[in-house]
């Protein structure tokens, strides 16, 4: 999303989201959350892109599930200021 044409990122106020990490992702990252500011109009895929840019991104699944505000979300789900985003590793409950 960053640098996408038609969407300003310098002059407008950004939206702050907390990206939560769990299990193998949290272990690989050495932390359980990343606080980021994204440009207005950012979507779930943009938060995922931030995670993909991390040095430990090799540990990510090919298409990690993303949750927004504790619910699975599609890649194009629009984010709002204060949203809680989570990158969900493959699950093993049950």
């Amino acid at each position, binding site marked *: 999303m960053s640098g996408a044409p038609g969407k300003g990122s310098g002059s407008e106020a950004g939206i702050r989201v907390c990206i939560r990490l*769990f299990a193998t992702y949290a272990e690989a990252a050495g932390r359980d959350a990343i606080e980021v500011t994204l440009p207005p109009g950012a979507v779930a895929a943009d938060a995922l892109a931030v995670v993909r840019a991390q040095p430990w991104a090799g540990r990510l699944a090919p298409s990690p599930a993303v949750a927004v505000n504790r*619910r699975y979300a599609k890649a194009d789900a629009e984010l709002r200021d204060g949203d809680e985003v989570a990158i969900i590793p493959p699950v093993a409950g049950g």
Partner: protein
Amino acid sequence: MWAMSGWLTDQPIDVARLVADVASAGSGGTVVFLGTVRRSEADGDVEAIEYSAYQEMADAELGRIVAETRARWPEVRIALRHRTGLVPLGEASVVIAASAPHRAEAYAASRFLIEETKRRAPIWKKERLATGAARWVEGRPAGG
């Protein structure tokens, strides 16, 4: 620290209690599913499984799964608990009780509940070995 939210618990699951929770005069059949940690030859000396969860979302997602089940089989009564934290081998990690006037519905709802729980609940597990080592158990792609 928390002890229990709606669907998650860090204590042993009381199966009899869940069965009692779904009992009713109109119930003809109750199906209970107990998930226990399977141990294959290749596993070595696993002593316990540690379940971790995105607790707020796991609780919400399990609630959505139960609501979907109730919408699909309105006569079914449901009780469900999933463990978090350390679960010794032999103890159930998940117990689901479903009762209905007719057993076909109880079976169908039970199966739906466990399949959706396994597919959607943001829960992970790590094997604790006798050696003191630990390793994550490979999961399934999560899906909403």
